[in-house]
């Protein structure tokens, strides 16, 4: 078993990993920027080191600084959390080169799945259905036009190095294709330093359903059910639930098997999520694979009775997976709401500031993952997430009711939060009926807020 782990992250996920380390008897080492000096991870880790100034580039993204601390603290392994360096293949390689275990897949696997066009090819070869589109990066306008005609408009131009919605354009008419290609390419070059784009059929009002997988270093891969993350705004998830209202047992098995095949195709190790897009006819297509632990992992933990972060530590230690596929039993329904310090009435502007009062809800089946406390100063340098509220109920309706109750009891004073928006969402009849697709919130935002 690992003896000491450095967490190359901050906020609630850093805290989450520290807690998993505590449970497993592993010593934790935190790194923090000057802005996070008084944060919980810095205060409760066994050791903590200041690695830079507030800007992520100068602290959490500074690979040499992180590795120097790892060297000094003599850690065995480094956990990258999510975001920051979690999917940086160079960082994964650098950790290994420097003699540390990287708690995640190899740099190679990250690279293969990080290049979206490459990932599509790998999946096609592994027999996993992908969204109809170009086989490779687009090299000419005539090629793009031909494929677009074949698969049918509307089409979606996506950046191969992309993420977070950048470098994407929806094209509904052939005339718009040329301009959209140019724009997407340029935006991608600016944001990611890579102008490569490819084309996919645009599945309108689809659902985003992802499968959690866990692999060990011996080729064993298991899927732990799905999560439905269709409740989004501008490609940012607001709410996630497990299981998905549109997935039945058979579909779960097919998607699960496809996800396992995807992981095996790249010799995956650790926690991963295979994202699928599900169309109106319940057909699913591979969208991308996230080679890290995800923000919404708690809902899977709640319905499967597992501790995914702890399992990551065990797998990284060289243990075999603690369960086989038949050991995974899913029970009940879990929902997670991401509470952000944002003004949802005015374009979701981030509202950093001092959290004067922080009183999270408590109770059976209620879990709050957060690093907040009363008197905490939310700085403007990082994302605006305050807390994740997760509930479990035996049925979806009971989970919804429990979440409403929990959010109503959640007292946060001093900053604006998105709690009221979530409460409205939970009462929205379409949401309750399980009918919300990925574009729903954007389209119906005004209605929802009435």
């Amino acid at each position, binding site marked *: 078993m690992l003896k000491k782990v450095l967490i190359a992250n901050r906020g609630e996920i850093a805290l989450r990993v520290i807690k998993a380390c505590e449970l497993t008897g592993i010593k934790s080492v935190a790194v923090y920027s000057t802005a996070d000096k008084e944060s919980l991870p810095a205060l409760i880790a066994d050791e903590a*080191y200041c690695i830079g100034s507030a*800007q992520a580039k100068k602290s959490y993204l500074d690979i040499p600084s992180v590795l120097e601390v790892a060297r000094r603290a003599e850690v065995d392994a480094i956990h990258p959390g999510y975001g920051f360096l979690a999917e940086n293949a160079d960082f994964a390689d650098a950790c290994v080169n420097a003699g540390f275990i990287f708690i995640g897949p190899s740099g190679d696997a990250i690279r293969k799945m990080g290049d979206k066009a490459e990932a599509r090819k790998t999946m096609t070869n592994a027999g996993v259905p992908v969204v109809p589109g170009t086989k490779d990066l687009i090299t000419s306008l005539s090629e793009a036009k031909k494929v677009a005609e074949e698969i049918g408009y509307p089409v979606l131009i996506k950046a191969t190095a992309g993420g977070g919605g950048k470098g994407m354009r929806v094209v509904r008419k052939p005339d718009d294709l040329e301009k959209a290609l140019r724009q997407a390419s340029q935006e991608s070059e600016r944001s990611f330093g890579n102008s490569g784009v490819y084309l996919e059929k645009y599945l309108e009002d689809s659902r985003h359903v992802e499968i959690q997988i866990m692999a060990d270093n011996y080729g064993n891969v298991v899927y732990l059910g799905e999560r439905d993350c269709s409740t989004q705004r501008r490609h940012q998830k607001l709410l996630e639930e497990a299981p998905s209202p549109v997935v039945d047992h058979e579909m779960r098995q097919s998607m699960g098997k496809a996800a396992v095949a995807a992981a095996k195709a790249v010799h995956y190790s650790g926690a991963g999520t295979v994202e699928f897009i599900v169309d109106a006819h319940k057909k699913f297509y591979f969208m991308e694979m996230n080679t890290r632990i995800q923000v919404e992992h708690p809902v899977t933990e709640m319905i499967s009775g597992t501790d995914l972060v702890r399992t990551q530590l065990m797998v990284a230690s060289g243990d075999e997976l603690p369960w086989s596929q038949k050991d995974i039993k899913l029970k009940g329904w879990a929902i997670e709401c991401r509470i952000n310090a944002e003004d949802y009435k005015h374009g979701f502007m981030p509202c950093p500031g001092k959290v004067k009062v922080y009183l999270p809800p408590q109770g059976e089946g209620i879990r709050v993952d957060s690093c907040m406390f009363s008197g905490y*100063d939310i700085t403007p340098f990082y994302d605006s997430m305050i807390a994740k509220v997760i509930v479990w109920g035996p049925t979806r309706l009971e989970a919804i009711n429990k979440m409403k109750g929990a959010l109503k009891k959640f007292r946060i004073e001093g900053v604006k939060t998105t709690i009221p928006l979530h409460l409205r969402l939970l009462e929205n009849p379409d949401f309750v009926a399980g009918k919300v697709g990925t574009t729903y919130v954007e389209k119906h935002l005004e209605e929802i807020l009435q």
Partner: protein
Amino acid sequence: MLTLDEIKDLMQSVDASGFTTFKYNTEDCSLVLKKGTTSVVTTSPSLTIADKPISKPATDEERIVEITAPSVGTFYKSSEPGAEAFVEVGSVVKENTIVCILEAMKLFTEIEAEVSGEIVEILVKDGDFVEYGQPLFKVKTK
């Protein structure tokens, strides 16, 4: 309380974003940044910017400032093992005098004093690991 470094980082973040006005209020300070203008307005009489903590002033004209580590790394007092140290107690330094080397991931960075004055104390030993912001030298300056 924001340090000068944090204000600089904030300015860079706002500059790179799509926002034109940025307001930040806490109990102790209030900061407004407007893009496209040359003014930065702060409205708090008690706002002080401390980037180099000052310990005790020696006299009215002199004070002690600290040279702090601008990054994480291993501290070396000379350019090579066995070579003469860059500075000793009593050495006079200018802003661009090299005072030590910090090593991280096998790259060695020469650290400049960024203040002028006389070294009165060396706070770390050769080979010590230092964190970002850790005080390395005390300099008596005017």
